[in-house]
């Protein structure tokens, strides 16, 4: 584990001693802030309308609604930002020949990969952490339920961690950062859109093979990365969702490990 710690330190130092982390965090925060402002504004206007016309809002329209919508949106932003974090992790080592140093040192491949994985999810945690002022601000001027907010952060973090593990695997396959970044983005986007695909395929299959359609639909929805987020955002901890994200992380790390191991045998 000492090796993993060494790698974690080196990667974190890299992130925060180069512009990479700052640029990514800045982009993330600017988008998040704009979205927050927009939602906040929308909420105040709408709730004013409901108050004036004495109608009950059609759903649970509390300040928590702002956070729920925002978190959902931040999931998309993480998807876009994340390939920039993971693309260099292993590709860069191979390109600059430092993989020879890593693989001939007494540090195990697993330690190296874990060090990198934890460094990248640390950066994700920092990004998310910097948005904490939003719920605090809402709570200061109104009242919010904290449980769904904390669960939302947890869900986003676990989802980010799963993204990192997949990005890490893709990065182990090539020595080109650009290729790694683009493929990671494509993969994550694919797994993101697959839930929408599930709907469409379900409808089409309803016509031709009514029996299988629901199975295909729920299968596609199951592997979709964002569908598992919705329960978290509502403040519900469903072990299925928890297990899904954790096992996605494990799977990505496992594949990355296999991939590094196998390149040596080629």
């Amino acid at each position, binding site marked *: 584990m000492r090796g993993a710690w060494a790698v974690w330190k080196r990667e974190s130092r890299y992130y925060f001693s180069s512009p990479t982390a700052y640029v990514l965090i800045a982009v993330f925060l600017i988008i998040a802030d704009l979205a927050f402002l927009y939602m906040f504004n929308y909420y105040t206007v709408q709730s004013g309308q409901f108050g004036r016309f004495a109608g009950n809002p059609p759903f649970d329209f509390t300040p928590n609604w702002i956070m729920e919508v925002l978190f959902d949106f931040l999931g998309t932003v993480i998807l876009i930002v994340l390939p920039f974090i993971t693309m260099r992790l292993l590709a860069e080592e191979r390109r600059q020949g430092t993989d020879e140093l890593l693989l001939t040192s*007494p540090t195990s491949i697993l330690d190296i990969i874990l060090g990198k994985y934890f460094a990248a999810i640390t950066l994700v945690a920092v990004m998310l952490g910097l948005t904490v002022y939003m719920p605090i601000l809402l709570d200061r001027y109104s009242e919010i339920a904290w449980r769904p907010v904390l669960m939302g952060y947890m869900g986003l973090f676990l989802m980010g961690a799963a993204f990192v593990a997949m990005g890490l695997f893709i990065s182990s396959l090539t020595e080109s950062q650009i290729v790694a970044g683009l493929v990671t983005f494509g993969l994550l986007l694919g797994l993101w859109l697959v839930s929408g695909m599930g709907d469409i395929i379900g409808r089409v299959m309803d016509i031709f093979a009514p029996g299988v359609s629901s199975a295909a639909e729920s299968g596609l929805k199951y592997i979709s990365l964002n569908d598992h987020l919705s329960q978290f955002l509502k403040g519900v901890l469903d072990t299925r969702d928890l297990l899904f994200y954790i096992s996605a992380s494990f799977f990505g790390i496992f594949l990355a490990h296999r991939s590094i191991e196998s390149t040596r045998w080629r």
Partner: protein
Amino acid sequence: MIEAESLSKRYGPLTAVDNISFKAEKGDVLGFLGPNGAGKTTTMRIITGFMPPSEGRATVAGMDVFEKSREVKSRIGYLPERPPLYQDMVVRTYLDYVAELKGLNRSQRGEAVERVVESCGIGEVADRLAGHLSKGYQQRLGIAQAMVNDPEVLILDEPTIGLDPKQIVEMRDMIRKLAGERTVILSSHILGEVSRICNKVVIINRGKIVANDTIEALKKSLQSTERVTMRLQKGDPSVGDAVEKLPGVKSVSKSGGTWNIESEPGSGTVENVAQLVIDKGWGLEEVSHVDISLEDVFLQLVRESEDEREAGLQEGEE
């Protein structure tokens, strides 16, 4: 200390290393010599545990490189052909990181880093970014990172490649100084370099060993023939025959205006030839002894192995 037992490495249809065996005892400095693409880097990568061989095995200090990889790796210092530097890291931080990867604890690391900074002469650049160093300093830093865990075995892949002549001399001195009690394997395609630093040499070509001996033995094998060149003012058709009849002379040939004579060592050919030419009045312009360099042996060995290979191929076709 280091032993390779019939190592082979194939990349698909290509055989990079073909049944190589050699041994380096404790304290040996073994030169691994061959033209580019001969399989030197592959062999070194196998010994360092970077990649497994397709066949055969390598042991360091009696331990199999793959079965006991962690123990072996902590005893090896390795400088790959391209020094494995992080461009964005400060020299001292980088060395500390490598030391940590190699399993040194915090108190050992500080000491180890200062030791290699001192012994590799990188004190004046120790606070600069590795990516900003000149090629010479990068190479030194590469050696420093290999030395940071005070390894028993040092493996250096082309340590002088890309350096200027002054740096090459400095690098050789440094390697000699650092070798000490350690077992060193270094690869090169320059024979002069190997003969200056190493006590043993393994020559490989196209993945096969063509010679495996001490430097002295190699030099001795060269001295099995003595070469003499001669230039005359007046040509005479009978020169060749006359010289060939001298005692100990094995062959005579002429290229341009120069005669090349090969003879048994110690048969006094220079003297005999000079006497003959003066007696016959051919007008002696020059007669001299030619030193056969290791370079020649190297080329000769490589050429012989190529010839054998071609002969083998032709047989195969028939």
